[in-house]
């Protein structure tokens, strides 16, 4: 089980409260987790990653286990604690302007 913490605006958009949990059957990577997240909540498509390029949107960051995963390869394995559900995967709207 993967635990995901969404930023407030995306929680509201997905109409969820608190953490989202997902069961990932494949190896847990950022790509597989985000694919599963968007599969369950299609409204989030395009809000975290670009529709076409699948690149992370510039002001969205990914954190887990006190590490910034934003620049990790999307197919790199998630930290073991995230894959086990011991630690959440944090999707964060960067503090920038506005």
């Amino acid at each position, binding site marked *: 089980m993967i635990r995901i913490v969404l*930023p407030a605006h995306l929680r509201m*958009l997905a109409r969820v409260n608190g953490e989202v949990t997902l069961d990932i059957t494949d190896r847990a990577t950022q790509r597989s987790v985000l694919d599963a997240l968007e599969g369950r909540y299609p409204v989030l498509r395009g*809000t975290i990653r670009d*529709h*076409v390029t699948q690149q992370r*949107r510039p002001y969205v960051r990914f954190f887990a286990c006190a590490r910034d995963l934003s620049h990790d390869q999307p197919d790199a394995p998630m930290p073991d604690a995230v894959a086990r559900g011991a630690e959440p995967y944090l999707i964060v709207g960067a503090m920038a302007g506005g």
Partner: protein
Amino acid sequence: MSAVRVLVGTRKGAFFLTSDGKRKQWDVSGPHFAGWEIYHVKGSPVDPNRLYASQSSGWFGQLIQRSDDGGKTWEPVGNEFVYDGVPGTHQWYDGTLRPWEFKRVWHLEPSLTDPDAVYAGVEDAALFRSGDGGKTWQELRGLREHGSGPSWQPGAGGTCLHTIIQDPSNPQRIFIAISAAGAFRSDDAGNTWRPINHGLKSEQIPDPNAEVGHCVHRVAMHPSRPNVLFMQKHWDVMRSDDAGESWQEVSGNLPTDFGFPIEVHAHEPETIYVVPIKSDSEHFPPEGKLRVYRSRTGGNEWEALTKGLPQRDCYVNVLRDAMAVDSLDSCGVYFGTTGGQVYASNDAGDNWEPIVRDLPAVLSVEVQTLA
């Protein structure tokens, strides 16, 4: 009993203002989509309960929201705006070429005949259409690819397609306008396009006959006379009597001919409204006096409308999509400011009052006249 609903898009959400036909007492609902930029909200002329909203943020990109109950509830619909084919490049500020890149939807224009059909004007400039209530979007690529596209260069606000006008007498004809590119017309329902900028003069463009590059801020049309167009250009207020084939300046006695919105009275096709702004570097009214100017002669002769508007220390702007009219017997005129006020006149501009005054900066104002 008639009623009016004013749809206000702001930097931090949408607000809906409703009143009966007297337009004296207003109820304000919102913020809807709090914290998001709402560039535009507009209702279907066929089904006034069908509303479309452009919701975006620098963090999470673009969403399109749809309501089927007049704004009480909303559903996000499709947000995939993908240029058709290989998008190619257009000019950047420094003259280098940049790939076309979708940034946001500036303007939504529901079809005149089908509540499920809606056009979207986007940045980087392109026109999209949905025929399924906003679930999916297809680019009308003939505009971007008609020939001049690679020479389009962004204005200060970006390369945005901000005006979409459908000809009610000819479903094949659509007008659009793009900031810093110009006005364009299609006579085959959006498949092919050509620039319609003959007669526009822009100081910074050395070629007096330049087909594109003119910074059009807004174009308006009265539905009873679809060949007559009015334009607020970066500088100059212009008029065309031949569906954009040629333009004549009608700035006349305006104190400044810079501005953003332009609107036409609902029942008097020669009565038009602008809000003069001091200059392109000083985006506020001249002398700190907020004045709407009205011409009853289709331009050239203008009168200042000031009653109820601040006449000192006012330094707000009125953006291009932030003015609209209702269609009640005594035409209502509405506009919103970057200071968060929405002003309304229920007598065609003679008298004004703020119907809400402390919103986030207003990006757009649309009005629905309800039976």
